[in-house]
């Protein structure tokens, strides 16, 4: 048992904890483009000050939060009915229906986003459909807008929403709903007072699993968004790879972490609680 604790502990200390200490150290340093690596160590908070004073960075934080929150809500509205329908399907159908939700996750993330590039482009199938059906006269390209980014996030993370929701809805005791119906509750009332509150843990877990990764998302805004789509993951990437400003990129990373500490802690507590309930 001692080794079972020591081995992962040491690995994660070296490859996970130590690197964060380095990020913090670099974030307090200064950009030095003439040396390799391009950093001069120091102790100044000016990188952080820049992040909170420059309009571009503030806008990037706010729009990341906004895009992640709305995408999570859309994924919930789409995922909840799906999870509910699967949980109420005949038991012999459920494994297949669930597998169909999980399958896209096992294919490449990059390629699933790529699939939308052709669909959303100008003269792409969606553009053609909108014009043919008369919904919009000249929709143009959806690719390169925030619409496309929302769509990409919902598409990529929908399985993460459906699975925890299904897990809680499947365990739900249907006799409670029958009792409610016997006592004269309408289906909607029964849903709002029984199903919804009892599936709350699934809702919280699903929303966190969509919200947390979409905040720092890079691939989706890069491939589907336009030049005016600001997201913090893309800002970090550009500072690092395009501007080679390692200290500023590190400061962005630290801020992103601080922003996510709350949601991540909430998620971990819930995970631990649901595991303890099983033991």
């Amino acid at each position: 048992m001692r080794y079972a604790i020591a081995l992962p502990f040491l690995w994660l200390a070296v490859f996970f904890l130590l690197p964060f200490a380095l990020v913090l150290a670099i974030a307090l340093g200064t950009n030095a483009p003439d040396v390799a690596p391009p950093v001069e160590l120091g102790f100044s908070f000016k990188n952080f000050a820049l992040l909170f004073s420059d309009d571009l960075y503030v806008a990037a934080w706010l729009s990341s939060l906004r895009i992640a929150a709305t995408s999570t809500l859309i994924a919930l509205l789409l995922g909840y009915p799906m999870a509910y329908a699967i949980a109420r399907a005949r038991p012999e159908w459920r494994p297949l229906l669930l597998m169909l939700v999980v399958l896209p996750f096992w294919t490449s993330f990059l390629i699933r986003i790529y699939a939308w590039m052709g669909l959303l482009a100008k003269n792409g199938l969606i553009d053609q459909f909108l014009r043919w059906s008369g919904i919009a006269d000249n929709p143009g390209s959806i690719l390169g807008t925030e619409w496309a980014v929302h769509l990409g996030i919902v598409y990529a993370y929908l399985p993460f929403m459906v699975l925890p929701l299904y897990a809680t809805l499947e365990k739900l005791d249907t006799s409670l709903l029958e009792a409610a119906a016997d006592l004269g509750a309408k289906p909607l009332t029964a849903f709002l007072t029984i199903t919804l509150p009892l599936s709350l843990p699934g809702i919280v877990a699903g929303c966190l699993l969509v919200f947390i990764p979409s905040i720092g998302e890079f691939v989706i805004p890069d491939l589907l968004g336009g030049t005016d789509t600001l997201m913090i993951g893309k800002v970090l990437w550009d500072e690092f790879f395009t501007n080679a400003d390692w200290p500023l990129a590190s400061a962005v990373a630290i801020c992103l972490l601080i922003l996510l500490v709350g949601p991540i802690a909430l998620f971990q507590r819930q995970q631990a609680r649901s595991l303890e309930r099983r033991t």
Partner: protein
Amino acid sequence: MNGRARFAFTVLAFGYAFLYLPIVLVIVYSFNESRLVTVWAGFSTKWWQALFANEAMLDAAWLSLRIALVSATTAAVIGLAAGYALARAPFFFGRTLFGSLVIAPMVMPEVVMGISMLLLFVGSEQLLGGPDRGFLTITLAHTTFSIAFVAIVVQARLADFDRSLEEAAMDLGATPWTTFRTITLPLITPAVGSGWLLAFTLSLDDLILTQFVAGAQSQTLPMRVYSSVRLGVDPQINVLATIIVCVAACALILSGWLTRRKV
């Protein structure tokens, strides 16, 4: 069909159409004669031939496979240890820290992990003179984020099954190691297997972390795909997507079949 069944059917039909329509179209257009994905110009397998003649793409695929194999196996061993410790050692000094540390890489934004691991490797290059960035650094990075996935699957599996078997073995005088080897390990092998498969897939698919730690010489498959996709739609990528979807579907069906037989 009553109203409720019709509602369920509509919801699922719409949901699955949303999930699968883009994938189906990518597959269809991999057989398109034209370079454009917006126009259907007749059936052709020329992009399939082009992909299999694309040396750079094949080299990248081979590198990705090797990295995935090594990192998934390492992560399976460490994740097994972590999951076992979390499920079977309820109290020890630093357990809360240990638990958070194991799960944290799963929910960490990849850009953050990428920059932090790169700084680690740059630091060790400065101080220790190595390792060179490439196969080794990518494998170490992938192993680190995959451990969590194996650990969670193993922990959940251990939490489910009966502990009395292990206790019986111990009562009969088996050492902890013998008990683990003869009782626990065989019972959780399917969980370790599915954790390994998950780690393998994640490694094969990872772009962001890899881009940070890869260095100038090595290019994995997702890096290649990304640099080609950035320039626009490329039918060879459609072919690659078709292959990946088929392999994933086969692997999932196989693993579903294997786990059902075990139960």
